[in-house]
Each structure stands twice: as C-alpha cells, then as structure tokens.
C-alpha cells in the first residue's frame, strides 16, 4: 500500500476559541505568551509584512487584518476594536 503523506489543517476538524487553547497550553505545555502577544510571536521579522500592508493599502494599520480575522473567531467585536483604537 502506498500512502501519500496527507497534510491537514487541525482547525478544519477541531475548533476551540483561542482563549481556551491558550489556557490549555499554559497548563499542559508550559507555554507562554511572552511579551503579551499571542499572535506571531515566533518571528523577529513578523511586523514587516504588516507594515508593508500599511504602505500598500490605504486605511490599513498593522492591526487591521488581525482584528478583522478575530471576528470570525468570536473574539472580536466593534466595541473592542474601537476601545483599542486599532482599526
């Protein structure tokens, strides 16, 4: 039997709000959000593509796409965005 490695995205099968995931990871995997950010904490250069978006697209800040993406995740609403002043 030939088995071609299959690549799957975990969240297409199992989904938890990331706030719950972070609680689990802190408890079970000794995971830390370090500087207080839970997004893209893995790369020193991570801000650059977001900065580039702000140059390319009018009315975009480096937070816009992240904030927008958290709406479907159920962790964002307009009030939160307005209070953060990040939109």
């Amino acid at each position, binding site marked *: *039997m030939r088995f071609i490695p299959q690549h799957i995205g975990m969240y*297409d099968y199992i989904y938890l709000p990331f706030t719950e995931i972070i609680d689990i990871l802190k408890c079970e995997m000794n995971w830390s959000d370090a500087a207080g950010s839970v997004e893209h*904490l893995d790369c020193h250069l991570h801000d650059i593509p977001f900065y580039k978006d702000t140059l390319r697209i*009018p009315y975009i800040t480096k937070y816009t796409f992240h904030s*927008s993406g958290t709406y479907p995740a159920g962790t964002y609403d307009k009030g939160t965005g307005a209070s953060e002043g990040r939109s």
Partner: protein
Amino acid sequence: MSDIKRCTRCILPESLSNITFDEEGICNHCRKYEADFKNWDSIKERKFKEFEEILEKAKKLKRPYDVLVPLSGGKDSTYALYLCTKIYGLKTLAVTLDNGFLTRPAKDNIRNALASCNADHIFYSINSKNSSELFKIFTEKTGDFCNACMRGINYSIEFAAKSFNIPLVIKGSGRRVQSVSQIKEVSSLNTASYFANVIRGTDAGNKFRYLSADKNKLEFQKIAGGGSVIFLA
C-alpha cells in the same frame, strides 16, 4: 480616516480592491466566511470523527512516526503537538525551521512543549547571514520575503516526512481561522516553482536551489478545507 466606509462586522475598509458591502454594510469576506462555516455546529461532530479516523489510519500503518507536526513555538502549532501527543498518544515527530530570526520566546516555548510531551524533534536552523541574503533577493525581486521563509518551512516538512516515511502532517492551521489570509490583498504564493524562478540567476541561486526541489510538482500542503485523505493502493 473616520470617513472611510468599513464592514459593520469585521471593520475591513473599502480601500481593499476586492471588497464589496451588502445592504447591511457587511462585507463579502464576512459573507463568504458565513457561507463556508455557518453549518459548523451541525458538522463539527462529523469533522471530529473524520479527524479521529484519519489518526487511526495513520497509526495502523505502524511507521516510525504516526504524525509530523511543524512546530514554530506559537500557540497553534503547540496545540497541534498537544493534541497529537497528550490527547491521542501518537508517535509524533515535530520539525522546526529557524529562519535565523526565530524569537527567544518561541524557542522557550518549543523547549518547554517538548519537555512536556514525548515527541521527538528536528530543529533545522538556517544561518541568519544566509537567510538575510535570501530575503534581500526576494524583497528586491518581488517586494516580499515571507514566501522565501514559507518555502523553507515547507521544505523542512517535506524532508522530515520523506526521511521517516511519515504518513500524516498535522498543521496548526485551517481555513476556519485563516479566512483573512485568503483575502487577495494579503494572500501570496509560496510554491517551489515560484521560489526557483525568483532565485534564478542570483548569488543565492546555487546556495538555495535545494529549496526548490520538486518544483514541477504541486504542493500537497495546500490546505483544502480539510479535504479527503489520500490513500492509494
């Protein structure tokens, strides 16, 4: 800035070239997400069952490792590692690509996660002098360097899966949490063919040619909404 029209749900602005708004002021990206995932509650049990069936099939092959988990030290990949090792007890190999700019917190998380489970690990580090050279070429030729890094990540996955004959790669990703990255303005290419074309004729061409191996094949790691598993007899 206050005059710009924005989606009443997700705040994306009308300055995006492919955005449209309906009569409720909700954008096409939100509507697409809604159409794709509005039935999640009714299908999540089936998807969960599918997930477990995939894992079972991988385990039955009795390979050296049941699953490969690309591990960056971020929350999503660490959660994938947690599921594979501590919930499902899979023989797990993790693989990390350090592009020369992996942060200290990420390295700490990787070390802590591995100490918390029984996964083995491959750590592939590209010297930052070399990756900087590559990123410079990508930036000069394409205006973007993230694709160079993504190719390196995909290469490390391909390398590990092939070396250990691993049947399954589980990524800390998925369309449900990456809807924004599918917006045209922020999506990008990272195929081996693209990589090969960018570095061709440059000083980095020889040094990094290996990253464009199999450049004529489509990549399997494209996430396709949890598409069907490929088992070939």
